[in-house]
C-alpha cells in the first residue's frame, strides 16, 4: 500500500510539471504579450516599457524557470488587470467553484447510482430503455439551455429558487442540477454496465447459491465491483465540473474560478491564466489520486501482492 502511494505521487508530480510547462508555452503562443497588454492605441515606446516592466524582454527559458521557481514557493505572481496577487484572486473565488462542483457531483451520484442499478436489474425492459433515453437526452442537452429553462420555471414562474448570485445554499441548487446533468449520463451508463457485468459473474452465482438476500447480492457483492470504474470516472467528472463550469458560472452569475479564467483570457492577463490552469491541473491530479486510493480500498487486487 505504501509503495502504491509513492508510485502514485511520483506520477502526480510528473503530470503537474508537464501541465506547468504546457500552460506556460500556450500563453506565449497567443502572440506578443506586451503588445496585447498595451492595447491597440499604445505607441511603440509604451510597448517597450511594458516589455521591460514585466520582464518579457528576458530569454523565454529564464522567464519560465523564474515562474516555476516562484510557483513552487506558492507565489503565482500578480495580475496585470486586477492589480492583486493571483493567489489571493484564486483563493477568493475557489470556495464558490468548489461548492458548485461538489453540489453537482453529489446530485449526479444520488441520481445516477440508483438509476444505473435499476436499469441493470431490469435489463432490456421498458424501464431500462426509459433510463437509457433519459441519459441520452441528458447528454444531448446544452447546459446553458437547461440552465435558462430551470431559471424560467423554478426561478421565475414558481419562485422556488433564486436565479443568480451566491448568497445562500439555495443559490447553488439550480447550477448544481445543471452541472450534474453533464455527469449523469456517463455515470448512469457506467453503473448500469458495471452492474450488468457483475450480476453475470461467477461470484454472484456463488452469492445466490449461498442463499444471500437480494439486497446483499446487489449492494454488497455486485455494487462494490461495479463501483470501481464509476469512482474513477466520477473523479474525472468532478475535475471537469471544477474546471469547466465557466458557462454555468456565467449563466448564474457565480463568480468562481471559471469566471475568473474567462475574464483573464479576454484581458490577456497571462499570470492569472497560467495560475488557474496550474491550480486546476493540480486539483485534477489530486482527484485522480483520491480516486485511485478509493479504488484500492474497493478492490484489494490493486493494492499489490
Amino acid at each position, binding site marked *: 500500500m505504501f509503495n502504491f502511494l509513492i508510485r502514485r505521487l511520483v506520477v502526480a508530480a510528473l503530470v503537474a510539471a508537464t501541465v506547468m510547462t504546457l500552460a506556460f508555452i500556450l500563453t506565449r503562443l497567443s502572440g506578443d504579450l506586451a503588445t496585447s497588454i498595451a492595447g491597440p492605441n499604445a505607441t511603440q515606446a509604451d510597448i517597450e516599457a511594458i516589455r521591460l516592466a514585466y520582464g518579457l524582454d528576458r530569454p523565454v527559458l529564464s522567464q519560465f524557470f523564474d515562474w516555476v521557481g516562484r510557483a513552487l514557493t506558492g507565489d503565482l505572481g500578480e495580475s496585470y488587470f486586477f492589480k492583486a496577487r493571483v493567489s489571493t484572486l484564486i483563493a477568493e473565488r475557489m470556495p464558490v467553484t468548489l461548492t458548485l462542483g461538489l453540489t453537482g457531483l453529489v446530485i449526479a451520484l444520488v441520481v445516477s447510482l440508483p438509476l444505473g442499478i435499476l436499469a441493470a436489474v431490469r435489463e432490456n425492459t421498458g424501464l431500462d430503455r426509459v433510463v437509457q433515453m433519459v441519459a441520452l437526452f441528458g447528454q444531448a442537452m446544452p447546459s446553458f439551455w437547461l440552465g435558462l429553462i430551470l431559471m424560467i420555471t423554478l426561478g421565475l414562474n414558481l419562485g422556488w429558487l433564486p436565479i443568480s448570485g451566491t448568497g445562500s445554499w439555495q443559490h447553488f441548487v439550480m447550477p448544481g442540477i445543471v452541472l450534474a446533468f453533464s455527469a449523469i449520463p456517463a455515470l448512469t451508463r457506467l453503473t448500469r454496465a458495471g452492474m450488468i457485468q457483475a450480476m453475470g*459473474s*461467477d*461470484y454472484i*452465482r*456463488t*452469492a*445466490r*447459491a*449461498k*442463499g*444471500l*438476500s*437480494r439486497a*446483499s447480492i446487489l449492494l454488497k*457483492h455486485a455494487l*462494490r*465491483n461495479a463501483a470501481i470504474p464509476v469512482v474513477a470516472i466520477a473523479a474525472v467528472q468532478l475535475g471537469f465540473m471544477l474546471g469547466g463550469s465557466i458557462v454555468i458560472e456565467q449563466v448564474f452569475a457565480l463568480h468562481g474560478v471559471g469566471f475568473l479564467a474567462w475574464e483573464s483570457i479576454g484581458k490577456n492577463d497571462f499570470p492569472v491564466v497560467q495560475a488557474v490552469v496550474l491550480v486546476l491541473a493540480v486539483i485534477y491530479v489530486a482527484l485522480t489520486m483520491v480516486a485511485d486510493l478509493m479504488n484500492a480500498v*474497493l*478492490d*484489494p*487486487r490493486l493494492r499489490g*501482492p
Partner: protein
Amino acid sequence: MSALLDVEGLEVGFGSRTSAVRGISLTVERGETHCLVGESGCGKSVTALAVMNLLARGSHRTARRMTFQGEDLLKLNDRGMARLRGNAMAMIFQEPMTSLNPAYTVGSQMTEVLRRHKGASQRAATDRAADLLARVGITAPGLRLGQFPHQLSGGLRQRVMIAMALMCDPQLLIADEPTTALDVTVQAQILRLLAELQRDLGLGVLLITHDLGIVARVATRVSVMYAGEVVESAATAQLFADPRHPYTKGLLRCVPVPGKQRQDEPLGSIPGTVPRIGPGFAGCAFRERCDFADETCAHIIPRHAASPGHDYLCRLTA
C-alpha cells in the same frame, strides 16, 4: 423414508427452440454420491442449476416432482429457495478462480453464510470458518481468513469454496465439475477430501463430471446423460461391469484401463457430435452416432430395467 433429493421428469428449456434437459429423473440418498456423467453440453450443469433454482433468466423449468427432504421445491418462491440454498443444500462450482468475490476476504465471504442462515455472531461464525478451513486441509486458517481470493492458488480457493459450502451443515452438496479447472495432483486431493467429508458428515452428494476415472473412484451411483436425457442409470460397479446403452459402452471404451488394454490397441472414440435438440424431437438422440441404430430408433424409446436399480433407454434389450 423418502430420498434426500427426488427429481422426476425435470425439463429445462431456453427460449422456445432449445431443450437443454428433457425429462430427467434422479434421486440422491443420504450418504451417497450420485455422479452425473456426460459430454459438455449434455445438460449436467443445467440439471444442477435447475435443482438449486439458479438458472439464468429466460429459461423455464418444469418437473412432475422435485422434493428435497420431503419439501416440494416446485412450490417454493425465491425467498423459500434462498432459505434452503447455502443452508441445507449447498453448491460448489467448476471455476474456483472466479467463483469467489475478489473484493472481500475469505473470512467475510465464509461467515456471511452462517450469519445469514443461522443468525450466528461474527465471532462464532469466524471460529466455525477457521475450523472448517482446517478441516478441508488448509494450514494457518487464521491467516487465510484475512486474505483475499487473489492471494490464494486455485486448489486453495476450491478448498475455501468447499469449506464455505459446509458452513451450515448441509444435507446435500451439489458439486459441478469441482476439479476440472485444477492440476491433476490437486484434483486427486480435492476428490479425496470430498469423499472423506461425504463419509464423515453423511452428506448426500450430487457430483457432476465428464471424467469416468472420477466416477469409478467416488460414485455410489451413476447416471449417464446424453442430449438432455439420462440414458442409463445404475450402481457404479454394475455400470462398469455391465453397461447396456451403446453410449455408455462407447464412453467406457474411451477410457484406458491399465492391464486390460494392449499397448498397441487404439483407444476408442465416438464419432460425431451431440445434436441440438428442440421441442418435438422424438426417438433416440444418440441414433445418428450409434452403430446399432435402425429406423425404429426414430420412434419413442422405452426405458428398460436390466436389473433392479439399473435401467437404460434403448430399444436393444439384449
